[in-house]
């Protein structure tokens, strides 16, 4: 009986020692490797610049469209610009999709693309683009690109 008790006590002591060793080992690993919590993707300075560039392209597009007389505002006149900007927005989406822990930025990029395609299709079908709507859409894209830019800047580790 005495042996059993002493054996159990020894087992418990060993177990406690083992736990302590594991905890110590974990802490040592954290110290050696440098521990960092990660819930958002790394900041991408090149992408941050590209977001501003595409935002400028969209803003210039609307600036020119609004300045164009209604009669000259047909879809064909703007077709090439629509395609070029669509390509650039898709590139933003692809770059965001290629990163882990980046669901929110992907969602913002998808919204921008969806709105761009929606307004492009409406312009194509209607053949006209009302100034009132163009002004609304210009402001909306400013807000959407701001959201994308704010999200990217928030990822900076040197803040």
């Amino acid at each position: 009986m005495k042996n059993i008790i002493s054996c159990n006590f020894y087992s418990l002591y060993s177990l406690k020692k083992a736990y302590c060793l594991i905890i110590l080992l974990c802490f040592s690993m954290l110290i050696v490797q440098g521990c960092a919590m990660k819930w958002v993707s790394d900041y991408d300075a090149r992408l941050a610049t590209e977001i501003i560039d595409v935002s400028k392209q969209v803003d210039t597009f609307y600036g020119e469209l609004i300045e164009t007389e209604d009669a000259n505002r047909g879809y064909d006149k703007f077709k090439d610009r629509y395609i070029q900007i669509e390509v650039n927005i898709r590139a933003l989406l692809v770059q965001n999709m290629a990163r882990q822990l980046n669901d929110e930025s992907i969602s913002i990029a998808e919204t921008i693309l969806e709105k761009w395609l929606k307004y492009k299709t409406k312009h194509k079908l209607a053949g006209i683009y009302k100034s009132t709507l163009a002004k609304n859409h210009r402001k909306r894209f400013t807000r959407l690109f701001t959201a994308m830019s704010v999200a990217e800047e928030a990822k900076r580790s040197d803040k």
Partner: protein
Amino acid sequence: MSFNMDAVLGNMLSAVKDSVDTDWNDVQGYAKQILENEKEALATLAQQRINGEITEEELQSELDDEKDTVEAEMNAIQVMNKAMAQRAANAAMDVLLQAIKIAI
């Protein structure tokens, strides 16, 4: 070397507070901007409909797009919050690891 857990926890808390204080101002500022933009956008749409500049169908479409825009802006806030929590957690962890290094 001694390891004073109370002192370490106090320093960790202080590191979290400093980190969150800085980031919180950014989140608050952007949230305020979102609300002001939305208020202005909705007032503009209402006025445009009253003036007959846009049809009922166009108004509905614009309202749908406004909803998606606010959702995108909330996604940006979500990233800010996650990044804020990440920075605060890492600041606390840095304090803890530094204290352990000194104690070893």
